């Protein structure tokens, strides 16, 4: 997978306010990249920088093979952005809204019509194409805004809080759309507060507050910070010697009793778990189930961001 976005020392100041501080980032072609940070961390400013909407105070970036500051118009043609607010023309119909942007992206009449139809169908809005957008629900408007951002087949799609304020149904639809767009080979750069969403959608995530604190895949971040925990349910209840049996299995780093289960920590559950089950059965235990416990990404985020607050 090649690199589709690379920034070096990208910095943005507004007077005395340092919004983005020396951002070094590499995003790979075709990945869903999560960009997570607290309010006021500079996420939206970063998006605007990378979409060539505002100029950096220092540093450089290459987006879709184009140089920021030198090829800004071409960068804007190569990326799509979903802004924090849908920003649709409410008095116009869905089709008129998309057709207007297709024209501004220079698609040409035939391509513009085809793309408008393709995306309205993809978003499930084709039957509503001639209704004014003012009559749309919030979820429909968000789908329209995503369609607008992807209409010109950009190489990178920047999405700023795509599911904020949506009900669970609409949020799920939007997440499915993001995955559908990613499956087409598009790189998705996702700014979100929603840890569950980042966990489900992203191949890699960056924790960000004015600068990147950490970048990795959600699983590796979890494993690195919390290890991998496994819960073994023994019925009717685990006995003290069952716990000792588990602790004696090679590869088990730690084990304890918790709510009627044995919980153990191991670096490699795929090798350790069968050994644990065999040892428990040999010790006369009835094993009801074995399941891996996943630390929540939210816990990982809070730990990393708070650690950064203490030691900036």
């Amino acid at each position, binding site marked *: 997978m090649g690199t589709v976005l690379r920034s070096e020392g990208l910095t943005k100041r*507004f007077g005395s306010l340092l919004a983005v501080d020396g951002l070094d980032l590499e995003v790979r072609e075709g990945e869903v990249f999560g960009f997570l940070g607290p309010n006021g961390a500079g996420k939206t400013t970063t998006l*605007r920088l990378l*979409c060539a*909407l*505002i*100029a950096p105070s220092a540093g450089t970036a290459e987006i*879709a093979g184009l140089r920021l500051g030198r090829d800004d*118009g*071409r960068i*804007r*043609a*190569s*990326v*799509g*952005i979903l*802004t924090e*607010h849908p*920003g*649709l*023309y*409410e*008095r*116009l119909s869905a089709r*008129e809204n998309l057709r*207007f*942007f297709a*024209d*501004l*992206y*220079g*698609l040409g009449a035939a*391509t513009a019509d085809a*793309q408008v139809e393709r995306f309205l169908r993809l978003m499930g809005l084709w039957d509503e194409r001639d209704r*004014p957008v003012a009559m749309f629900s919030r979820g429909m408007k968000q789908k329209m*805004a995503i369609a*607008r*951002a992807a209409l*010109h*087949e*950009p*190489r990178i799609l920047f999405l700023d809080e795509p599911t904020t304020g949506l009900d669970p149904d609409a949020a799920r639809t939007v997440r499915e759309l993001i995955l559908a767009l990613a499956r*087409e*080979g*598009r790189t998705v750069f996702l700014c979100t507060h929603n840890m569950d969403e980042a966990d489900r959608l992203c191949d890699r995530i960056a924790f960000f507050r004015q600068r990147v604190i950490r970048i990795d895949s959600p699983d590796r971040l979890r494993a690195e910070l919390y290890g991998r925990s496994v819960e073994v349910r023994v019925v009717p209840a685990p006995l003290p010697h069952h716990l000792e049996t588990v602790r004696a299995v090679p590869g088990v780093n730690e084990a304890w009793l918790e709510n009627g289960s044995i919980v153990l920590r191991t670096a490699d559950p795929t090798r350790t778990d069968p050994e644990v089950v065999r040892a428990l059965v040999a010790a006369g235990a009835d094993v009801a189930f074995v399941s891996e416990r996943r630390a929540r990404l939210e816990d990982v985020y809070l730990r990393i961001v708070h650690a950064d607050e203490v030691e900036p």
Partner: protein
Amino acid sequence: MTVLARAPSRSTIISSVCVREWREARANKLLVAMTLFPPLVILAAGIFAVGAAAIYPPNERDLEAIYAAAPAVVGLDPAQAVQGIIAQYFLILFMLIPTIVPLTIAVYSVIGEKSARTLEPLLATPVRIGELLLAKSVASVVPAVIVTWLAYLFYLLAVGAVGSPAAIRAVTAPRWVLAMIVMVPLITALSVNLGILISTRVNDVRVAQQIGGLVVVPVVALGIAQVTGRVVLDEGSFIQMSLVLLVIDAVVFAAARLAFQRENILTRWR
């Protein structure tokens, strides 16, 4: 994956922005009313006044006051003199249409986009900012000029039907025809770009209109001076004024272009 986007041509940008703005304006009944109301009132009042002057000629005392205020008509038949003055006076009001109508459209065009938060997606396209501004200006100038010319055309027809030869001569005088053809678009452009410039600094349509409305003052002053004979403007003067207006238009457009920049819009406009 092939990126389909490319920089659109200037004509595409202008036509797309115009069509979009006009569609939106058409759906905004308040804006349509605010656009059409002033020209309709001026047109109706003008036709009524010229017609009334033919029916009710002035008395001796009124005539003295008219001659004192407008030495240019001394010696004419009283009824004709009054009709000529009234017909010409309303032409000044017609010159106000391009200061009022496009200002409303331009202010809505920018402040409306600000409040609907539609500017950021627009600025994220490959469109160059100067072209976007030019497109917005054209979208406001064209309807205002058409409305003014249509109002003038109806006025000519009406004066031709009910007015005296002096009134007809007044409204078809070459300097006024020149003013309508050349100065109306220039005044419209000034009003539009001033409206855009003001809209970059304020968020309230009414405030922007009040500030932008000041553009009517020099037009009214010049018109009154012309009608009353204090300043007699011939065709040459109108051409000179048009050239001055052209320069002012260019300066105001450049100022609007400076204020209307991606980074300013996204980070400073509130």
